[in-house]
């Protein structure tokens, strides 16, 4: 089975993986609504898509932490796109505290963007797709969500919660023909990871987007590591006993 996406919403599309997913969908002929906080960047992504001259693009400025504005915007986009078969939630942020730094506001922001924002948008998508008996929801999670890590506590918590949420959603709506895809990424070369120091097995945003869409098109509600080697890393990381894990600087 290979799904073909024709009407998509990409949340968090002003840069990085989200922007690249939007470009690739449009290049494949889809109509894409790009949702994001930074209007200038969104417009630039839209201009790039338009100049490529393939699929239609709609620009929808929106802050994912303004949860109450998600439902009316979602409805408007579905109407403007003329249907919906794919929602990608790619909004992300990262904060790595220094040793002995405790910053609740920054950790909270990650939960708000990556967990609560994802719940707001995927609730809408899941209801729409359940009624429609088809559709794909893609959430961008991370290998980081496999364990709670001392170097990025808020981020690993947000990704663990996002992975759990997507799994719950999958268990809820896959029986109605809805394809819920969790992608657990390693390091991807974007502005979000620019400040990180160690970035093993890093891939480009183009490569990440390509793999994410290929995984989504296969259907069957998968949860997949991208690239696949991270699956092995995940298995090892999950199996390290806590008494040892707490001594590592991961």
């Amino acid at each position, binding site marked *: 089975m290979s799904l073909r996406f024709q009407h998509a919403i990409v949340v968090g599309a002003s840069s990085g993986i989200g922007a690249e997913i939007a470009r690739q969908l449009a290049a494949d002929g889809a109509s894409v609504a790009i949702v994001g906080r930074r209007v200038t960047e969104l417009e630039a992504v839209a201009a790039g898509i338009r100049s490529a001259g393939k699929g239609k693009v709609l620009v929808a400025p929106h802050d994912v932490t303004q*949860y*109450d*504005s*998600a*439902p*009316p915007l979602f*409805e408007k986009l579905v109407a403007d796109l003329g249907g919906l078969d794919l929602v990608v939630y790619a909004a992300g942020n990262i904060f790595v505290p220094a040793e002995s730094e405790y910053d609740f506001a920054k950790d909270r922001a990650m939960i708000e963007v990556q967990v609560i924002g994802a719940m707001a948008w995927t*609730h*809408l998508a899941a*209801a*729409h797709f*359940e*009624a*429609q*008996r088809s559709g794909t929801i893609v959430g961008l999670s991370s290998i980081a969500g496999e364990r709670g890590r001392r170097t990025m506590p808020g981020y690993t918590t947000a990704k663990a919660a996002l992975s759990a949420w997507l799994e719950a959603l999958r268990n809820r709506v896959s029986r*109605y023909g809805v394809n819920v895809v969790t992608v657990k990424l390693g390091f991807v070369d974007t502005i979000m990871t620019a400040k990180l120091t160690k970035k093993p097995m890093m891939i480009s945003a183009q490569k990440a987007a390509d793999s994410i869409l290929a995984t989504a098109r296969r259907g069957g509600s998968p949860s997949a590591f991208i690239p696949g080697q991270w699956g092995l890393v995940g298995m090892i990381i999950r199996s390290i006993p806590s008494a040892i894990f707490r001594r590592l600087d991961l």
Partner: protein
Amino acid sequence: MSGSLRSTAPWRVLDGFGSSRRAVSRCVTPRSLEELAALLKQAHQERLHVSFRGNGRSYGDASLNQGGLAIDNRGMARVLSFDPGTGVIEAQPGATIEDIWRTGLPHGYWPHVVPGTMHPTLGGCVAMNIHGKNCFKVGPFGDHVSELDLMTPDGGLRTLTREHEGELFRATIAGLGLLGAVTRVKLQLKKIESGRLRVRPIRTRTLGEMFDCFVERMPNADYLVGWLDCFATGAALGRGLVHQADYVSAAEDPQGVSHLDPARQGLPPSVMGVPRSLVWRFMKPFTNDLGMRLVNDIKYRLPETFESSGTFLEGHVAFAFLLDYVPNWRNAYGDAGFIQYQLFLPDATARKGMAEALALCQKRGVISYLGVFKRHRPDEYLLSHGLDGWSLALDFAVPSQPQRLWDLCRELTALVLDAGGTFYPAKDQIVDAASFAQAFGPRLERFLELKQSLDPEGLFSSDLARRLGLAPATPGR
């Protein structure tokens, strides 16, 4: 509710009883008249379409409202009063037929009109003006309603009776919930002496025999319902069974008084040894053309055992609520669900029209798994399906390639219109606005005038209302 309904109301995927139509709606459950009035006011301010929903027993899109606000009436489901001396009961719109009979029966009262299931709410029964197996004799549900409270878009309450605001009363019954929120229903129940009915099954070898059987028995029967084997062809076209049921007096059935106890009115806990809740799983392998041909054939041949004794006594619940025997039976149709197409044809054209309809289904290779036949009588409600004629309800599984079913339904609609028949929105999900207008003519025009005066901005709507041209096509007005 804090925040706007548009932004913060919870969502629900709602389906029609046939499981073949779905919509995503904002859904809220008010618990009081004040909450309801506040919701209407807020929905009006936010330009959200409002629909009403009870237990979701309408087969099609009557309780669906894509993108709008569905108000679930089950938060207001109390029986407000019951007078055992007169049999008058008052209840909120979310109270069900079950609540009504359970209240009345211990005192020797049964609703004059019940549908084939006890789960519909009074709000739904009023909005659809439902009918029962005794429609030929006692008319539809509305004929036993003596008073209604209707909440208009501004939150105001109007008490309607036949005498006071009679036209609005006659428009609200069968009004599809499009004139306002029914918040109170006063209903007259029927005095009965026994908790049982005397039931007589009669086999009818042809459709003509079924009509004749009804005509012969109507003057003396309390209930008459026909079942048709829609697979039968040729000379056997329309063969089936008629069940006649009559009230019995305490003298005729001395033990029947003890059956007024609701505890003695239960449905059997199992069907042929299978617990009721699991039966639909056993039905599933038969829910296809071949299996249903077999089931219909057996059903036609089986009742000979009854005929030797002629009649048997059966509790009101067991006789009335056939659809409740197998919980979740609609699941047997699978995820694509089923539709019901109920033809209502005038007396003069019904014999010919129904034979044509059955033959047409067979010609198109789309055969109903269940055919139910009833006699109706005209009534006074503006949008009522009631007529001096007959109805044939056909249940069709929605096939994986549904186009031929939709094509057949369009042909059936043309047949109904040619025959001068009517449509029943509680069942329908097929008919288009032009056909509906053709069937209801000036009655529809008058209804729309009343709606315009009561609800000028079109607050009350539904997927059905938009399909039938009773409300603007796009939400947001």
